[in-house]
């Protein structure tokens, strides 16, 4: 399990290759990447991501441990950035490995669902017209029920 919370950018290709290279006996690697996207109407200038140092790492470890218990997973990588990000910047990534793809796919979805509303990160969007904290969506909370 490799969990990193960092301000620095990360190299998606290099991280994915390194993750795949250190697996053994795993037939599948699944990755998900979150990217800062522009807004529908206003122009996004900066996305500020705040987190709770200490609790963030613990929460991510707990979520990853639950995924390990639930599926036949070889390894898990989570990288999540904080600080000031701009449109098209990579926010975070998860990678999972398993012998057969179903476990890696499901574990990656589980990790993302829980990471969205159970890991202490908060997003603030500064646009050309306003600065607002991003509100949690009820569908994100509902997404946990399927697990």
């Amino acid at each position, binding site marked *: 399990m490799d969990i990193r919370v960092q301000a620095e950018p990360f190299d998606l290709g290099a991280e994915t290759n390194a993750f795949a290279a250190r697996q053994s006996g795993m037939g599948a690697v699944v990755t998900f990447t979150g990217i800062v996207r522009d807004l529908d109407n206003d122009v996004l200038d900066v996305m500020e991501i*705040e987190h*709770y140092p200490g*609790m963030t790492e613990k929460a991510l470890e707990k979520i990853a441990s639950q995924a390990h218990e639930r599926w036949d997973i070889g390894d898990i990588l989570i990288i999540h950035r904080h600080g000031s990000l701009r449109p098209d910047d990579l*926010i975070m990534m998860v990678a999972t490995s398993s012998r057969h793809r179903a476990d890696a796919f499901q574990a990656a979805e589980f990790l993302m669902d829980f990471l*969205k509303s159970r*890991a*202490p990160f*908060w997003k603030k969007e500064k646009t050309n017209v306003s600065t607002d904290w991003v509100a949690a969506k009820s569908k994100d909370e509902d997404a946990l029920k399927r697990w």
Partner: protein
Amino acid sequence: MDVLYFAWVRERIGAPKERVETNAATVMDLVNELRTREERYAAAFADLSALRVAVDQELSDFDAPLKDVREVAFFPPMTGG
């Protein structure tokens, strides 16, 4: 104990962290104590359904006991990923 605030709760209170000397038995008691302090606390804690709480860095509830607790944090629902 240390009381931490994040996101708009931090902005409304005007500090990320403070030391609070309290005999509050539960998180709810602590909230009620803070509410009486100053208007900015009353404003931040006006709608508890909009808030989440962590006790010693674990997500918790407003009725959680505070005995031997070192750190309580208040924040809005999380928006990671």
